[in-house]
């Protein structure tokens, strides 16, 4: 816990409504003490440093408060880093480390050395032996940082590990046993979910969470917070008769027999189509109660035929339908379409049958991060998100000043009437800057945009390099050279993060580029929040270097069009930049509106996911208890006679072992079923708000009803779970060794896979629901 004084000061500033700390005096005081110890340490040998570290570790394990060990520890780490890495952390990096240890989010500009700053707090907090996780932006950085900083940790007696996508179980277990683990939130989160399927303590990958330092904290905690991590497995359930219906559905004519909605996310039959179908199938009414299964299969077949496209959403390979991951654009190994779509697609393409998919567990990144008892973060753009960080994660923001002041020049936006005009101007601008040999970095919003621009530059005979986050390691190298003379680099927001862009290949070149004005960063459009714009701007101007940033905006940009703000902006034509200050103001306003909307979506989403998350934790806690053999036997409470007889036959231990296996198995399926039920409730809940008004005639917030229904479903699920356990126990063959999981068919799904939800087939129901219902519900300022 931070000192009482710090806590009071922080409370004071928060009471004033500002969760941002500008006053670094408490940290500076600590720093002075750390600096005082430095001289003494430089004379110690490596072994002596190692011994000092060991003694600190012992003190921590004996229960001494980490705050008492901070000064010694930090001084130790600094000296070790100087020796092992030939890098002595600057004062600002030490202050940053102190703030991180304090559980804050530090705002530290790019290139100030966040990686090094995180080492001291990570090491200090790992002394107790509970493990520290450092969450990096991508896999490559996890490996790089772990290996880079490794020597420091090793000298100081702690082990460091890292996790990567594709690692096997044993590797992961070894990694998590390390004192400090580097990994992406995504991968560590998936491992958390995978542990949900562990059938014994040996199969667990992770230890309980303790402390996490989050890199690019605002990206993860805000922008990506609502992304759910999903663990799915194969299942034998399928819709009935997909094959024959696929053929029938194939005969339907677009626009006559069926229609799609604007975003091509939904397809429905028209009246004509329905009649035609009913005729063909010889049914009076498809919408009768009895024909529900048939209707479902038809809908699935329709969806498969109309909304999913070969080679875009899926491919057919080796007589199998394989899924294409929407985030990466690559084929997702092992994954199946859920909800019956796999079968529908197989019928459509006439290929062999595989198992379908079903969701076994999921957690949003936000809730995952909140599992850590202690959190800290670092980013170059924290202040704009300070309130949200405080509200959702109880994290304060500390501003760490740069080592050298930032002299970056932020140019005003250039606004154009059309995309074409903008692109032309972009090429022109790049040509102009490139002609003087000044390096240019262009940030685009999408992969296709970056490719288009690269094409255009190619036609203009300008050589450029493109980064699309397809290969982090390679791209890190490319981006490192983005500051060299004459370099033109195009990159999407995700690519090349975490790598410092130095100016010039050598000192001489560096001086020349500084003369030219440094790295020129161009944004091809404004993002959904100013903070993200700032992330791009921050790529230049590191460590006191000069730099320029500028945004090119067109009135046809997605930001403007998506939020229907086109009408708000004055109409203009022409290929040259629009000079109208009103337009500029409106664009800035548009951005603020979207920021606000996203914030309110996040807030509402948190409210809705909160209850399922609470239930998830309960189930998970129960699972942990069962795994560690600390639970009450259900059989005993439900069927005392049977229990007694069983104990006589196989002994108490046998019963416990058996019930453990049974419970673990049923827990997985019960939770999976519950998730499906919750999804159904979610789909139906917006209907609730249609009919319900409160006493003032204003539509009621469906949140209440949602919570009640989800709660009831959970209760029913738990009751059924208990019954299932007892039933299985009755039917199984139990020996003093428990039971044979294989024989009793208590094994898990034949294959599992993990993914992030972006736009799954039926869309993220909540968001659509909110955008539609928001007007009605929230438009009455007086009543909620």
């Amino acid at each position, binding site marked *: 816990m931070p000192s009482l004084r710090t806590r009071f000061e922080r409370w004071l500033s928060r009471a004033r409504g500002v969760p941002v700390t500008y006053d670094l005096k408490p940290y500076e005081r600590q720093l002075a003490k750390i600096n005082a110890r430095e001289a003494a340490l430089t004379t110690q040998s490596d072994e002596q440093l190692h011994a000092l570290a060991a003694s600190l570790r012992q003190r921590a394990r004996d229960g001494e408060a980490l705050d008492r060990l901070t000064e010694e520890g930090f001084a130790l780490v600094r000296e070790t880093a100087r020796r092992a890495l030939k890098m002595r952390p600057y004062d600002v990096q030490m202050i940053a480390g102190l703030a991180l240890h304090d559980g804050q989010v530090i705002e530290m500009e790019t290139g100030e050395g966040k990686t090094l700053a995180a080492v001291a707090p990570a090491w200090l907090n790992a002394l107790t032996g509970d493990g520290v996780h450092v969450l990096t932006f991508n896999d490559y950085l996890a490996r790089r940082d772990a290996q880079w900083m490794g020597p420091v940790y090793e000298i100081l007696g702690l082990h460091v590990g890292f996790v990567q996508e594709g690692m096997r179980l044993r590797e992961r277990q070894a990694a998590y046993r390390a004192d400090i683990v580097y990994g992406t939130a995504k991968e560590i989160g998936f491992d958390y979910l995978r542990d949900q399927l562990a059938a014994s303590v040996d199969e667990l990958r992770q230890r*309980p969470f303790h402390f996490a330092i989050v890199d690019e904290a605002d990206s993860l905690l805000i922008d990506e917070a609502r992304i759910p991590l999903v663990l799915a497995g194969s299942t034998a*359930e*399928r*819709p009935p008769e997909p094959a024959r219906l696929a053929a029938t559905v194939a005969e339907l004519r677009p626009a006559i027999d069926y229609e799609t*909605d604007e975003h091509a996310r*939904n397809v*429905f039959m028209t*009246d004509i189509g329905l009649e035609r179908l009913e005729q063909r199938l010889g049914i009076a*009414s498809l*919408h*009768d*109660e009895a024909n*529900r299964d048939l209707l479902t299969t038809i*809908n699935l077949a329709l969806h498969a035929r109309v909304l999913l496209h070969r080679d875009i959403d899926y491919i057919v390979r080796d007589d199998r339908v394989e899924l294409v991951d929407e985030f990466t654009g690559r084929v997702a190994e092992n994954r199946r379409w*859920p*909800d*019956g779509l796999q079968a529908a697609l197989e019928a459509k393409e006439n290929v062999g049958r595989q198992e*379908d998919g079903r969701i076994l567990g999921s957690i949003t990144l936000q809730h995952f991060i909140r*599992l850590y008892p202690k959190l800290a973060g670092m980013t170059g753009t924290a202040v704009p998100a300070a309130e949200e960080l405080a509200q959702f994660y109880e994290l304060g923001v500390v501003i760490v000043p740069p080592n050298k002041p930032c002299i970056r020049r932020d140019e005003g936006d250039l606004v154009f009437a059309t995309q074409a005009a903008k692109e032309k101007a972009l090429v022109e601008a790049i040509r102009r800057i490139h002609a003087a040999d000044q390096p240019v970095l262009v940030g685009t919003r999408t992969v296709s945009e970056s490719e288009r621009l690269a094409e255009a530059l190619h036609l203009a005979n300008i050589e450029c390099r493109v980064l699309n986050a397809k290969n982090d390691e390679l791209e890190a190298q490319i981006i490192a050279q983005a500051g060299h003379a004459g370099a033109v680099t195009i990159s999407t927001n995700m690519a090349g993060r975490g790598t410092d862009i130095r100016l010039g290949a050598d000192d001489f070149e560096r001086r020349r580029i500084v003369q030219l004005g440094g790295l020129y960063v161009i944004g091809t459009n404004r993002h959904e929040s100013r903070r993200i714009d700032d992330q791009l701007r921050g790529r230049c101007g590191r460590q006191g270097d000069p730099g320029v940033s500028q945004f090119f905006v067109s009135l046809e940009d997605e930001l403007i069009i998506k939020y229907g703000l086109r009408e708000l902006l004055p109409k203009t034509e022409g290929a040259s930049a629009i000079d109208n200050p009103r337009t500029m103001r409106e664009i800035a306003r548009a951005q603020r*509106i979207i920021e*606000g*909307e996203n914030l*309110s979506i996040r807030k509402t989403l948190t409210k809705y996911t909160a*209850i399922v998350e609470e239930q998830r934790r*309960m189930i998970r*806690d*129960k699972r942990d*208890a069962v795994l560690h053999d600390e639970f009450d036997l*259900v059989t005993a409470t439900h069927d005392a006679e049977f229990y007694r007889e069983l104990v006589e036959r196989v002994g108490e231990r046998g019963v416990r072992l058996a019930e453990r296996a049974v419970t673990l198995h049923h827990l997985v399926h019960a939770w*999976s*079923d*519950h998730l499906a*039920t919750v999804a*159904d409730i979610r*789909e*139906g809940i*917006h*209907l609730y708000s*249609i*009919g319900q*008004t*409160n*006493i*003032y005639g204003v539509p009621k917030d469906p949140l209440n009803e949602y919570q*009640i229904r989800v*709660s009831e*479903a959970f*209760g*029913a*699920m738990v009751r059924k*779970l*208990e019954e299932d356990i007892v039933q299985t126990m009755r039917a199984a063959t139990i020996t003093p060794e428990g039971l044979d999981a294989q024989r009793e068919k208590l094994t898990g799904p034949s294959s599992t896979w993990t993914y992030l939800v972006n736009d799954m087939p*039926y869309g993220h129901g909540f968001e659509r629901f909110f955008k*539609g219902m928001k007007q009605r519900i929230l*438009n*009455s*300022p*007086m*009543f*909620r």
Partner: protein
Amino acid sequence: MVGAFSNIFKIPELKRRVLMTFGLLAVYRIGCVVPTPGINGAALADYFKGLQGTIFGMVSMFSGGALENGSIFALGIMPYISASIILQLLTVVIPYLERLSKEGEVGRRKITQYTRYGTVVLSLFQGFMIAYGLERGMMGPGVVTHPGMAFKLMTMITLTAGTAFIMWLGEQISEYGIGNGISLIIFAGIIARMPAAIVQLFMDVWEAERRVLEIVPIIVLMVVVVGLIIYVERAQRKIPIQHAKRVVGRKIYGGASTYLPLRINTAGVIPPIFASSILMFPTTIAQFFEHPWLQAIGDQLAPGRLLYNLIYVALIIFFCYFYTAVTFNPVDVADNLKRSGAYIPGRRPGKPTADYIDRILTRITFGGAIYVAAICVLPTILISKFNVPFYFGGTSLLIVVGVALDTIQQLESHMLTRHYEGFLGSKGKFKGRR
């Protein structure tokens, strides 16, 4: 239920919120007895005492007794409500406001801001009217100690400040307490006077001004009416809905079957409020212009008169239909259903579904309208025919019961997941381990 309530105190956050709500409401009630400077409290109280047994109407209800006390909260929250309603209507008419309403959080906040400004303006206006009226002896002689411009200004400012403070209190309750702040304030105001009224009733018996036999049917009636309101407000016409979009674990657990719930009384108390607002016009105008002809009309249209009641009922029924028709469009609903892949078993999506919903809705609304009208006319009958000494029924009762039900539901949702301690109550070590 009782067990459930004791649970409130087991959850720290909930307890905090409930206590906060009570605290803020207490502040409100205290404010209700703080007098406005320049008004002779005694004279005003005399006037109202003499007025007991007649109908005060909406203003009094919404002021929660503050009017009689001449307190700084005399205007109550009514100006805010009026401003909200006006702004809501304006949003439909003025394109600028419509645009704002569609602009997400920022736009909404702006509209809320406008509502607050509107409240201030209305409060100033109403404050002026009251000061003017009081000076002219509207509520008895000698109420105003020093009539004049100064008094008017002071009253305007004081009353406006009072209403603004109530607004703030309401927002605090919504933010840090339970339920909707403004509703709770109205609720508090209304029920604050009920104990006194009931006591009065019993006092009458005690002082032999009434016979016990007279009271019993009154009490029975009150219980029945409240019970009826609870029943109707919680009643739902459930239209079964089925989804046919996916194949998942199809074991449906009890409680997860989907349906479209329609409430009987979609419009709530809006129709009677509108109705009485409209009916107030002639009487108010009659007060200002001393014309015998207008006076006659004003008389006939006074609350309690037969003509008033008839028109009142008719307007209520009309507004019930009108409001429901405006807010609930069956075609939209059917479209909505179609988009989510849901349908009513036995009906085709699209027009057939819309028609079906429309039919049901029309029938329900009729029942709802009759119900609302009956409840609203009740107090008139009670007072004129049975000499009940207080105002029981009408919009105030609907609001009280409605708000109570809503708040209870909100409370419940905070306590939901407490029920699973049995199977899932893991032993200490594993609680919230990760």
